[in-house]
C-alpha cells in the first residue's frame, strides 16, 4: 500500500457515492469540452483570415452590391498586391432546404489569393479556370450529395434568374477542394462570375465583396483608408475591414453566443461544485473517528489535510478527464458524419483550460473538508466514537 492507494481506497470506499459524484463531474466536463469546441468551430471563420487580407463591402451593408468596375480601380491603389471578388449565389441543390454557401468568383485571382487556404489539385484548378461552366465544391459538400468529378450538377439560386426565366444553373464539377489552413469542414461551391453575370436577368456588372491581399499587413490601415476615401462620395460608398473582422461580424450577428456559452457552462459547473463539495464535506464528517485514529497513529495534521485535498483533486481529475474524453469521442464521431456543419476539435488549449478548471474544482471542493480534517481533535474524535 502507498499513500496514493490510501487516497484511492478512501475515495472509493462507498462505490455508489463515488460513482454518482464522478458521474456528475463527468457530465459537467463533457459539456465543457463540447461547448468550448462548438464555440471554437463557430469562430473558425475568424481563424481562416490571413493578416494581409482586407474585405471591401458596401458601406450600407455587405449585402448591398458594389459595381464590378471597383475591382480594377482598387487594383491601382498603392500597396495592393492581389484583388478578387465574390458574388453571393443564394444557392441550393434540388430543394431549398439543401442550402449551399455558393459564390460566383473570378477563378484565377480567387485561387491565387486563397492559395494557402484552399487545397485543390493543380490539374483540377486548371480545369476549373478554363471551364466557363465549371465549379469547384468543398469535399464535405461533394461527399454529402455524392458528387463526382465531371458530373453535371444543377445548382439553383433563390436570387439570380437567367434571362430565359430559369433559376437553375447547370455546372460541371471540375474540382473538389479541402480547407488546408484550419480544422473546418470544406463546404460551399464556387463558379465563374462571368458565367453568372452574362446569363442573369438583373444585377449585371455588380458584385458582392471585393477581397484584396496587401503587400504588407502593416499597410492595412493605410490601404483601407485609401479605398474608402476614394469611393466616399460615390453612390456606392465602401467599408474596408480586415478579413478577421469581417468574418467575426457574421458570428456576432447571431447574438451574444459566448455569453450564453459561459452561462451554461458556468451553471453546469456551479451545480457540480455544490454536489461535490457537499459529498466531500459529508464524507469527511462521517470519517471523523477514523481521522482521529490516523492522527493518534502519528499522522501529522498536514498529512491528513493533504490526503483529503488529494482525494478531492483526484475525484475532479478523474471525472473531468472522463468527461473530456467523452467530449473528444463525440467530436471525433461527428467529424465522420457527412454534412455535419461544424468540425468540433478539442484543441490543446481547451484540454489545458479544462485541466485548470478541474484543479480549481478540486481545490474548491476539497479545501474546506481538508481544513475540517486538519482541525479534528483526536481526543474529541474518540469520545464521539
Amino acid at each position, binding site marked *: *500500500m*502507498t*499513500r496514493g*492507494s*490510501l487516497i484511492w*481506497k*478512501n475515495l*472509493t*470506499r462507498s462505490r455508489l457515492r463515488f460513482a454518482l459524484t464522478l458521474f456528475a463531474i463527468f457530465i459537467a466536463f463533457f459539456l465543457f469540452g463540447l461547448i468550448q469546441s462548438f464555440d471554437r468551430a463557430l469562430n473558425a471563420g475568424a481563424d481562416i483570415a490571413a493578416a494581409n487580407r482586407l474585405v471591401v463591402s458596401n458601406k450600407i451593408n455587405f449585402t448591398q452590391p458594389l459595381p464590378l468596375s471597383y475591382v480594377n480601380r482598387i487594383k491601382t491603389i498603392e500597396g495592393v498586391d492581389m484583388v478578387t471578388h465574390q458574388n453571393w449565389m443564394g444557392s441550393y441543390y434540388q430543394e431549398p432546404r439543401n442550402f449551399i454557401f455558393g459564390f460566383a468568383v473570378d477563378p484565377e485571382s480567387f485561387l491565387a489569393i486563397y492559395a494557402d487556404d484552399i487545397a485543390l489539385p493543380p490539374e483540377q484548378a486548371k480545369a476549373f479556370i478554363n471551364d466557363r461552366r465549371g465549379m469547384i465544391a468543398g469535399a464535405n459538400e461533394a461527399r454529402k450529395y455524392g458528387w463526382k468529378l465531371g458530373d453535371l450538377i444543377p445548382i439553383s439560386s433563390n436570387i439570380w434568374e437567367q434571362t430565359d426565366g430559369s433559376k437553375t444553373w447547370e455546372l460541371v464539377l471540375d474540382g473538389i477542394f479541402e480547407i488546408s489552413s484550419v480544422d473546418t469542414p470544406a463546404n460551399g461551391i464556387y463558379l465563374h462570375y462571368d458565367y453568372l453575370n452574362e446569363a442573369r436577368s438583373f444585377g449585371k456588372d455588380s458584385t458582392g465583396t471585393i477581397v484584396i491581399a496587401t503587400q504588407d499587413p502593416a499597410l492595412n490601415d493605410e490601404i483601407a483608408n485609401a479605398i474608402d476615401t476614394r469611393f466616399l462620395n460615390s453612390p456606392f460608398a465602401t467599408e474596408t475591414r480586415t478579413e478577421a473582422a469581417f468574418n467575426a461580424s457574421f458570428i456576432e450577428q447571431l447574438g451574444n453566443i459566448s455569453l450564453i456559452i459561459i452561462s451554461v457552462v458556468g451553471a453546469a459547473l456551479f451545480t457540480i461544485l455544490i454536489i461535490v463539495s457537499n459529498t466531500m464535506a459529508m464524507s469527511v464528517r462521517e470519517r471523523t*473517528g*477514523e481521522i482521529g*485514529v*490516523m*492522527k*493518534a*497513529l*502519528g*499522522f*501529522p*495534521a*498536514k*498529512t491528513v489535510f493533504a490526503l483529503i485535498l488529494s482525494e478531492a483533486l483526484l475525484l475532479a481529475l478523474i471525472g473531468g478527464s472522463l468527461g473530456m474524453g467523452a467530449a473528444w469521442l463525440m467530436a471525433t464521431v461527428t467529424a465522420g458524419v457527412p454534412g455535419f456543419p461544424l468540425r468540433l476539435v478539442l484543441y490543446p488549449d481547451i484540454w489545458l483550460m479544462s485541466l485548470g478548471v478541474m484543479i480549481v474544482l478540486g481545490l474548491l471542493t476539497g479545501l474546506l473538508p481538508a481544513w475540517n480534517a486538519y482541525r479534528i481533535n*483526536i*481526543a474529541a474524535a*474518540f469520545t464521539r*466514537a
Partner: protein
Amino acid sequence: MAENISEISSAPTPLIQLRDVSKTYRKSGTDITIFHNLNLEIKAGDFVAVMGPSGSGKTTLLNLLGGIDRADAGSIAINDEELTHMSESRLSRWRADTVGFIFQFYNLMPMLNAASNVELPLLLTRLSRSERRKNVETALQIVGLEDRAGHSPKELSGGQQQRVAIARAIVSDPKLLLCDEPTGDLDRGTAAEILETLQMLNRDFGKTIIMVTHDPEAARYAKRVLHLDKGHFIEKELSS
C-alpha cells in the same frame, strides 16, 4: 502536599515519568478537575492495568501518556522526551515512533484489508515497499493472523479485528503500548486470548504496556494494578 508516588524504581530513569501533572476540563461552564499534582513513574518492561470507576480519569491519563491531550501543568517525560512543550507535528512524529494504540472498538479502517491496516503507520516511515511488507508479515505472524492478511475488517471476528489492531500497534516497534479497554467488546474466551497475546508481547518482546480496563479478570493479566479514584492512585498488589 506530597502525593503518593506509586513506585520509585531502582532503574536509572523510568520509561514514564509524570511530575505534578494537573488537568482540568471545562464542561458546560464549570471546571472539572481531573488531576491535581499527579505523579507517576513506570519503568520499562512493566505491564500495568489501570482500573477505576467511570470519570476517575482513566482515559484522560491514557490520552496524556499518548500525547493526544496536553497537561495544564506539570511535566510528562516518556522515553527521555518531555511531551509538555512539544509542537503538534513533533508530537505526531513522537507518537509514530514511540507509542502503539489499541482501542476498545479496534478502530480499523473499513476500506483497508488486514495487511493494509497494519501497514498504515509504516506509511510515515522511510521504509521501502518490500521492507514494509516484511514488517507487516512479521506483525501479523506475532498475533497469529498471517493467513487473514487479505481479509477486510468486516470479514473478521471481533477477536481477529483486535489482533489486527494489535499488529498495527506493534508494526513500527514502539516501546510503549497503550490499551483502552482492549477486551471490552469481546466475549470471555476471546478476551483471554487477546490478553495472553499482550502478556506475550510484554514478556517476549519487552513492550511496556499500560491497559485501562473495567474488568478485574483482565487486570489479572497485568504485572500490577493501579486504581484511580478521583484523580489519585491507589496501588494494589495482585493476589493471584
